[in-house]
């Protein structure tokens, strides 16, 4: 026989999924939110997104010395997620520093894809937030683009329809719950996320918001805390980051609950109006611990 046969260990069938296809699915899932950002904040939003993605992908390509700048797609996802956490019109250099920090410090310094402990996009956001607080909190109202306060920082009765659709001030991707949920449904459908992390996260935010956010028990305060700020983006796209969240079913639920708890503690008792970034980063740090404490009961486990 002229052509040599391949001899390898079973199984001989593999699913069609690859890291690249998973990352592409995440990019597709973020598309409605990107569209909403461009509709609400205009062309500047697109520039911010492109700058973040390009700087992330280039940083990765340079560090890994690879010519294919899309590669496995993970840097593009990080760049896009970073853009989603930025205000609509930050200076161009802020976007570029963000991308370099996300990939260089958040990801490659730990050994690259799969080895980072913290969500790279959130590492970059935290660095930018602390270093250039002014630029990171210059919010614009949608469409007319004048300075405005975010719902979390302003007083008065919230307009839930506006909050849900996303026509409120805020970062690019955190405003439209509707667009984010569309993307989340896609990720559920593709099997890349499950209910445990987002479910635990949002439930805790809702319950704590209801109990502590208004006067007495207030369901509308609960709903407000879910829809305002970055909880929806965080719960479905940041906390569910595969690399930095637990792998065990029980661990995922604990992680989601922990994120919700930390977010609300920052919102109620911290010095920032928003707590999603720090909540998720803190929970990232304890992910390996959670995994090891929540190993599933194996088939036929015998009590020791």
């Amino acid at each position, binding site marked *: 026989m002229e052509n040599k046969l391949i001899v390898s260990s079973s199984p001989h*069938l593999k699913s069609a999924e*690859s890291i690249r296809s*998973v990352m592409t699915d995440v990019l597709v899932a973020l598309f409605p939110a990107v569209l909403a950002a461009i509709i609400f904040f205009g062309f500047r939003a697109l520039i911010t997104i492109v700058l973040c993605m390009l700087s992330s992908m280039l940083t990765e390509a340079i560090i890994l010395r690879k010519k294919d700048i899309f590669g496995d797609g993970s840097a593009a996802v990080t760049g896009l997620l970073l853009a989603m956490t930025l205000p609509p019109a930050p200076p161009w250099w802020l976007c570029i520093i963000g991308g370099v920090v996300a990939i260089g410090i958040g990801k490659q310094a730990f050994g690259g*894809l799969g080895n980072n402990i913290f969500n790279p996009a959130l590492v970059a956001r935290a660095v930018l937030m602390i270093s250039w607080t002014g630029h990171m909190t210059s919010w614009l109202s949608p469409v007319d683009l004048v300075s405005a306060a975010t719902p979390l920082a302003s007083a008065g009765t919230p307009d839930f329809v506006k909050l849900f659709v996303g026509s409120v001030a805020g970062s690019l991707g955190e405003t439209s719950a509707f667009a984010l949920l569309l993307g989340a449904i896609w990720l559920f459908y593709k099997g890349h996320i499950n209910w445990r992390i987002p479910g635990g996260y949002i439930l805790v935010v809702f319950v704590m918001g209801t109990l502590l956010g208004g006067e007495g028990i207030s369901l509308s305060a609960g709903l407000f805390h879910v829809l305002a700020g970055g909880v929806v983006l965080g719960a479905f796209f940041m906390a569910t980051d595969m690399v930095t969240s637990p792998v065990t079913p029980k661990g995922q639920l604990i992680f989601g609950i922990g994120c919700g708890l930390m977010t609300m503690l920052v919102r109620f008792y911290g010095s920032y109006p928003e707590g999603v970034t720090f909540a998720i980063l803190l929970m990232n740090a304890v992910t390996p611990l959670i995994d090891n404490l929540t190993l599933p009961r*194996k*088939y036929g486990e015998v009590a020791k």
Partner: protein
Amino acid sequence: MSLKTFKGGVHPGDHKSATEKKPVVPANPPAVAIIPLSQHIGAPCEPLVAVGDEVKMGQKIGDSKGFVSAPVHSSVSGKVIKIGTCNSAPGGTVEAIFIENDFQDTWHESVKPNPDWEKLNADELKQLVREAGIVGMGGATFPTHVKISPPPENKIDYVLVNGAECEPYLTSDHRAMLERPDDLIVGLQLVMKIVGAEKGCIGIEDNKPDAVEALTKAAADDPRIEVRALPTKYPQGAEKQLIKVFTGREVPSGGLPAHVGCIVQNVGTCIAIADAVRKGLPLIERIVTITGSGINEPKNMLVRIGTPLEDVIEQCGGFKPNLKKLILGGPMMGFAQPGPENLPVTKGTSGILCLTDEDVTVDDIGPCIKCAKCVEACPVSIMPLFIGSAVEQGLYDRAEQYDAMDCIECGCCSYICPAKRPLTQWIRMAKSEIAAKRRAAAK
């Protein structure tokens, strides 16, 4: 309709359409039969014949004094021309007896029906099963007479028959269920009698409704037997998963099905038992599915044990020119072969799967992104990703802590991994290292 199933598993697509509707056809007897002396798990047989001896069809030509072993028989009549070696499915070579076929098919005098088979007691039946050389025909090839002789302290109440045929591509069990349902039921009843079980269960994946129907009809007269459709999900037919679905029991870690009162038999094994007990037939032929994109005429064939693979392939129109992988067994747990040369069909050959370069990919191994898809897919709920990473670093103690030894090697984790990490292979490495360490510690 919601069917009861097990936790985890994957859906690789069944790929069975090429052969599932094709009746089993007999393959031509080989000009030279190559009968390996070890076609089972356990002690290899010693040859009972010498070069130059005349042998008859069904004559016992190899046996062992070990309890965990099964004798081998000649599948043709003719003359022993060589005692040498041939290739074996899992790799390496085994001793084999080469018999030149005289094409007379003269039966040996030991092969005779048992008209009073219904009066035989359990010990006599076990002896018949042993003498017929019957082993688990799903591919594991554990000697059946050992399986049906559980220690007396383990009371067996369930005999389960695996008709799931959850391996993609394979249809040999499916065809056996359609073409010989009554014999299958007799085989099951015999095993129930031998082990004293009150309940018999046959589990069949719901992509084979015709088999469910045929067996339900065949078992209609015996209220002890339940035929049940199971969801089509790999590895539905795995022993431990089947037991859990039918009885709710879990085989304890490191234990055997008998420890929870169960015995699981393959479809082909049950039919072989019925043949051995009623007709006195030793196991000298089996149904083999020859299929895949790399074969010209996919078929289900009744093949004499010892038929060289090349003969069978030729009767199926030969390989396609772009053949890239030749697998004995199914695609999830079967063994890839370097070629068909000097390789006979044995008692464990459920399928010959031929794949072309379109179906065979060689992927770069990526980093683990901790997507947890392997954790979700693992039917025994161990942590394939952590074991894989431990083995990559040579940390076998850590692999042991993550329960590598409980792995059933179904292949779900490797199948599902988006980073194409060979998790099952790594876990197998861990198992062999850990077993070696335990053996050394026991000395």
